[in-house]
């Protein structure tokens, strides 16, 4: 009898557990999406946050975007879809989750993790229909900035371009947020600032091996990267990318020494606290991603503190986060793949792009092309008031236009400070973006070497005791 009651107890638990999962009927497509935290519009805006654009669009986020997608998908394709939305903290966490058996259909890793997943043959190619720009609903292919599309098409892993496997979501640069009252633009335009002892304990560095490695590498190669001979090379961008992906043993040990200097000099290695430390004035300069730089600059301006953002002259890191579909999740289910591709198109819809950019502060890869919504939003957000006396013309046509050059077709008229502030961080000028390089993924062996170097830097040094 006792045994019976135990079995009964377990049975009750099992019923409760299984009841939670089994409510959906068979027609519904379940799409498991994993994204970064705070990286999509979750809705719930106040009424006064309504964005009224020049082209007549009024945009406001009421519901979480993935719920809006379910509604839109049913209206457009007549198929019920249920989005199971979850979040990961870092690319490494996401990768660990995938290897430990969590199954997702659509995830949004950063450039190097996309490359790693591609190299490990874990991704599904987009269907040809996804690239058909005749189809009205293909917002991604129709709307992605040609500049970004080119980068996605030109970069290859094992002979296949990224563009076939991944669709961009947000992009940006890395650089230095600084307080212009204490640090000049020239100083901030030099990665050397991070180990400059005149700012001892007044600068912060990113607490992850890749970003830290990148800045130290730029310091190590500074003379070469800035030499006229190098900058004027015809294949400057390829050569730059090659230099910034140098992982030879000599380079790694040189980088280790530079990182030790930086550790001695820095206030802290941080992932999140740097933003607040910058606003409260604890530190004067902060190694930052462009999207967080926008956030920091805006938070500070609410407290009447002016902060600027600069991509150092040696080189900045050009990064992307992009959507990829996973083999382990889709399992060749065409309905799922269709829903996954539609999800990418839905978040690439111009009004949704604006919602996301407003909500999270990062820059979307979508330019809008025949739709001016995204540009109008940038103009609405960064443009100067009519009564401003001094303004500059900030040309972003390399991003919004067809060619990767500035031809005056897309110009934001803004107050001069904006070019060094939030606008410059959100849409870097063409000059800046030319000196940015994509940092590729390290293969397992190299990554272990670099990570051991990083742990050496970060651990308490026994020798300092003696």
């Amino acid at each position, binding site marked *: *009898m*006792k045994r*019976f*009651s*135990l079995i*009964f*107890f377990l049975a009750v*638990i099992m019923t409760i557990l299984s009841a939670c999962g089994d409510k959906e009927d068979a027609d519904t497509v379940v799409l498991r999406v994993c994204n970064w935290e705070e990286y999509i519009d979750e809705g719930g805006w106040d009424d006064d946050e309504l964005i009224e654009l020049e082209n007549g669009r009024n945009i406001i986020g009421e519901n979480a975007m993935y719920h809006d997608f379910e509604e839109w998908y049913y209206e457009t394709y007549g198929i019920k879809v249920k989005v199971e939305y979850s979040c990961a903290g*870092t690319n*490494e*966490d996401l*990768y*660990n989750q995938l*290897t430990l058996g969590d199954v997702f259909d659509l995830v949004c890793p950063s450039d190097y993790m996309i490359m790693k997943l591609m190299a490990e043959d874990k991704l599904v190619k987009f269907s040809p229909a996804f690239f058909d720009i005749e189809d009205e609903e293909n917002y991604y292919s129709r709307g992605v900035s040609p500049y970004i599309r080119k980068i996605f098409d030109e970069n290859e892993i094992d002979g296949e371009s990224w563009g076939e496997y991944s669709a961009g979501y947000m992009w940006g640069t890395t650089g230095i947020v600084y307080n212009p009252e204490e640090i000049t633009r020239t100083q901030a335009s030099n990665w050397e600032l991070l180990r400059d002892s005149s700012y001892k*304990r*007044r600068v912060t560095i990113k*607490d*992850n*091996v890749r970003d830290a490695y990148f800045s130290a590498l730029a310091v190590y190669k500074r003379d070469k990267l800035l030499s006229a001979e190098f900058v004027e090379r015809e294949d400057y961008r390829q050569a730059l990318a090659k230099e910034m992906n140098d992982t030879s043993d000599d380079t790694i040990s040189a980088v280790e020494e530079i990182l030790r200097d930086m*550790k001695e000099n*820095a*206030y*802290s*290695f*941080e*992932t999140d*606290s740097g933003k*607040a430390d910058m606003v*409260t004035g*604890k530190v004067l300069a902060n190694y930052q991603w462009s999207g967080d730089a926008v956030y920091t600059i805006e938070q500070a301006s609410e407290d009447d503190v002016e902060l600027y953002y600069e991509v150092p002259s040696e080189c900045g890191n050009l990064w992307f986060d992009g959507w990829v579909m996973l083999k382990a999740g889709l399992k060749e289910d065409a309905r799922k793949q269709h829903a996954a591709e539609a999800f990418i198109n839905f978040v690439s819809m111009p009004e949704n792009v604006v919602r996301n950019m407003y909500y999270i502060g990062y820059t979307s890869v979508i330019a809008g092309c025949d739709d001016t919504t995204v540009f109008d939003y940038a103009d609405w957000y960064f443009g100067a008031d009519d009564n401003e006396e001094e303004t500059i013309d900030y040309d972003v046509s390399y991003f919004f236009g067809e060619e990767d050059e500035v031809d005056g077709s897309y110009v934001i008229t803004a107050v001069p400070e904006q070019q060094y502030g939030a606008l410059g961080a959100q849409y870097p000028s063409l000059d800046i973006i030319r000196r940015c390089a994509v940092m590729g993924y390290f293969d397992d062996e190299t*990554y*272990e070497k670099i*990570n051991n170097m*990083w*742990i*050496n830097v*970060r*651990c*308490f*040094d*026994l020798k300092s*005791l003696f």
Partner: protein
Amino acid sequence: MKIYFSRKNLCIPYALFLVLFVIAPVLVVLYYAFTNGEGQFTLENLVGFFTSANTIGTLIYSMAVAFVVTVLCLVIAYPVAYILSKSRIKRRNGLLILFIIPMWINFTLRVTALKEVLSAIEGNLAYYPFINTVIGQTYDFLPFMILPIYTTLIKLDKDLEEAASDLGANDFRTFLKVTLPLSMPGVISGIMMVFLPAMTNYVILDILYNSTYIMGSLIGSYFSAYNWHTGSMISIVLFAIVFAATLITNKYTDIDNAADRGAML
């Protein structure tokens, strides 16, 4: 049909919890600690722990932090717990709540506030990393030291103290010879609750000031490099250290109890 409900069944939820969230994860960690990338058994990770200057350096640094934190907590917490236990019953609960209230506020918020206060006092936190780590952790772990000592002190038989003074011991001697030895179980469980978290809780460090790894951050950095094996081995060694410490202290408290019984006779 009638369903029996014996009292034993009450432990089912906890047993389930124990198996799912305590025993199973420890087994997984053990598996990773003693295997290599190919899933073969190896002792390399164990050897690696004791031969790597990084792990040993971090272990020493973390132990130094944890030791100072534990001593500081003890020095602050014991008098507080003692005063609390001696105060009148009516006032006691109010006072106790004063010490527990900070625990109702999320600790990240508390540590962030502490950071502002310390910055106002010191100017720049980063110049005193060790001291600030100690202050931050002491601040956060103090209630975990106060509560066990307080609960032991409050349960102490008042007659024993009265007996001691009847027999001619002054207050100080009574405290030294009767109260202190009898409150040792509380002190020990307080130490257990403070020492290990102080070695591994790197979140406080991350919020306050973060440049030198403690054990927790070291484990984390191996995990984010997909190196489960080294990270797991570090966890296992820490686990072994704590386990050994518990065994030793248990023995100590057993002797203590035996002495009690002797005194009773």
